[in-house]
């Protein structure tokens, strides 16, 4: 399987996820900002509108009060007994008039321009009303009481009723304006709700999409990972089998080369040696030259036989196949003793001789490697090799009195190779060693396999 279709979606997925989550966040941020802004707007415009309404109402109230009050002032003026009181009333009238005008102006400023027609009417009517009242002040003092009262009750009362009606109309306008503003607010709220609903729905949709994509992607990655893991395991297993096959092929090769060397080359050389002897028997006594050559041939053949013998034993000792494990181990022990001076003691149960080939070879090679380590690294003086049978397993231990090593840290190729051999036959392999306290290799091999 090629790698590109696997890496493709992974590279494409990441920007997609980032963009998706980014836009989701942005959407939420926008929605939040918009909602906050709108709410703030609504709050301020509502407050303003209510404030205006209140001020309009108050101003109109003041206008109404002014209308009544000015009429009362003018009646008081008519009823005044002396000029001084009359003049004070005129002054009060002017003051009230000013206040009322200001109140109406304030009201006009707060009213919607489209509704200002009614207000203008009210304003001009008020001016007329003022003029009517002013006229009273111009009535001569002597018939002030009679004509003034009549004028007041006829002209002014009627006019005042109209004015009040107009003021009520303005009041209605103000109320309408208030209601319109409420309607506007309601509409703004409705719009806000609609937009928020849309955004939330959109966010939910994008979120669901993202969640789906994320789950799909996670599952896919998980599957991929699992597959990789399985592939890794398979490869490891394959490698192990391969190395085991390699080991057994090597062993088989050694066995056949050893046998070939011994049975063919060795025997031929032995025959050659003997034939040389036979030839020597026919050499005339005075042919010293020929005899020398024959002797030289014999010496060469003898040396070659020795070389072949050593080679075959080193490759694979023939006693391992001819007589079994114990003689081979004993031979190995003797060889190591002779070569290195290390005392090697082999204790093996006779039953250990009847082992299947694979077990026998495994134990022999493990012991060989362990003894090799003893001689090469451990500086041991003596080694004990023990092989015995326990229930349905063969137990081997090789223990030396050498300088040891840190078994947790050092793991030479030799140890790894030994362990590999043992594990392949389903056995257990342990090395116990502490610096200065020797090394012990323990092996347990099941017999059933």
């Amino acid at each position, binding site marked *: 399987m090629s790698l590109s279709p696997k890496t493709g979606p992974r590279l494409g997925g990441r920007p997609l996820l980032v963009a998706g989550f980014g836009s989701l966040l942005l959407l939420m941020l926008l929605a939040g900002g918009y909602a906050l802004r709108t709410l703030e707007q609504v709050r301020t415009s509502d407050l303003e509108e209510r404030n205006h309404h209140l001020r309009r109402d108050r101003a109109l109230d003041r206008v109404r009060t002014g209308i009544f009050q000015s009429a009362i002032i003018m009646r008081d003026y008519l009823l005044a007994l002396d000029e001084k009181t009359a003049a004070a009333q005129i002054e009060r009238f002017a003051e009230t008039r000013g206040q009322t005008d200001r109140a109406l102006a304030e009201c006009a400023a707060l009213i919607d321009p489209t509704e200002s027609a009614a207000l203008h009417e009210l304003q001009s009517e008020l001016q007329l009303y003022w003029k009517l009242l002013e006229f009273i002040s111009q009535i001569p003092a002597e018939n002030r009481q009679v004509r003034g009262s009549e004028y007041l009750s006829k002209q002014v009362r009627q006019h005042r009723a109209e004015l009040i009606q107009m003021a009520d109309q303005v009041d209605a306008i103000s109320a309408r304006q208030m209601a319109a503003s409420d309607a506007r607010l309601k509409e703004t709220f409705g719009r806000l709700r609609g937009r928020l609903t849309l955004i939330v729905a959109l966010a939910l949709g994008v979120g669901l999409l993202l969640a789906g994509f994320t789950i799909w992607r996670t599952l896919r990655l998980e599957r991929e990972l699992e597959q990789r893991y399985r592939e890794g395991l398979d490869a490891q297993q394959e490698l192990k089998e391969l190395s085991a096959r390699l080991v057994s092929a090597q062993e088989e090769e050694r066995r056949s080369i050893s046998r070939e060397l011994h049975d063919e080359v060795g*025997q031929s050389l032995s025959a050659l040696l003997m034939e040389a002897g036979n030839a020597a028997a026919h050499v005339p006594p005075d042919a010293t030259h020929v005899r020398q050559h024959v002797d030289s041939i014999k010496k060469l053949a003898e040396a070659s036989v020795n070389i072949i013998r050593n080679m075959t034993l080193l490759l694979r000792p023939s006693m391992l196949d*001819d007589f079994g494990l114990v003689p081979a181990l004993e031979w190995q022990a003797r060889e190591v003793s002779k070569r290195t001076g290390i005392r090697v*003691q082999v204790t093996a149960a006779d039953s250990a001789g009847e082992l299947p080939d694979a077990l026998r070879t495994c134990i022999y090679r493990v012991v060989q490697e362990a003894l090799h380590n003893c001689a090469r690294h451990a500086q041991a003086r003596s080694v004990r090799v023990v092989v015995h049978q326990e229930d349905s397993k063969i137990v081997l231990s090789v223990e030396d009195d050498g300088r040891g090593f840190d078994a947790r840290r050092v793991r030479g190729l030799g140890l790894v190779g030994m362990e590999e051999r043992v594990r392949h036959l389903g056995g257990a392999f342990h090395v116990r060693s502490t610096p200065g306290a020797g090394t012990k290799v323990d092996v347990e091999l099941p017999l059933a396999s």
Partner: protein
Amino acid sequence: MTRILLADDHTVMRNGLRLLLERQPDLKVVGEASDGRQAVDLAAAENPDVVIMDIAMPQLNGVEATRQIVNRNPAAAVVILSMHKDESYVIRSLKAGARAYLLKDSAEADLIAAIGAITEGKSFFSPAVRSLLKEDYMHQLEELGAEDSYELLTNREREVLQLVAEGKSNKQVAALLNLSLYTVETHRNHILQKLNLHSAPELILYAVRKGIIS
């Protein structure tokens, strides 16, 4: 006339041996076997005085063939002629009933002498094998720090050991030493006990290792 059976899977080897042996006027090769099974069959058919046997042979190896031949005819004198120069082969051959062990590279020099020795009931080993066994014995003694059990034997027992190892029968030993047969048997048992040995081949092997016989 000594009748000889050759057992070796190499024709060249057998031819060479035949040439070597038949240069002697009193030796005659009566059969040639190219594997162990054939050797057993021919030994039964020809009843030779001496069998010269290789170890590495197809079908049945030389050690097993020797065991079968000696089982059938305890008087058969088997000379092992092998490439193998290790104690395990020598000991197993002797235990199987062989009386001489020669290395192929010294066949030409020693074979005639070996045949002479075993027809007289003695054992014979190639000098290289002899020194190997001796060396290993000394090495073992040294290693185990054990006392040489030979020191435990009395002078009389040493005399008996040597004669037995040389292939003499109890009767011959009794006659030579002027002792009763019963006394010789007692000596012999004591020797085996003291040396921790169990059979005649082991006794012979011991004697070789000690250098008592050659």
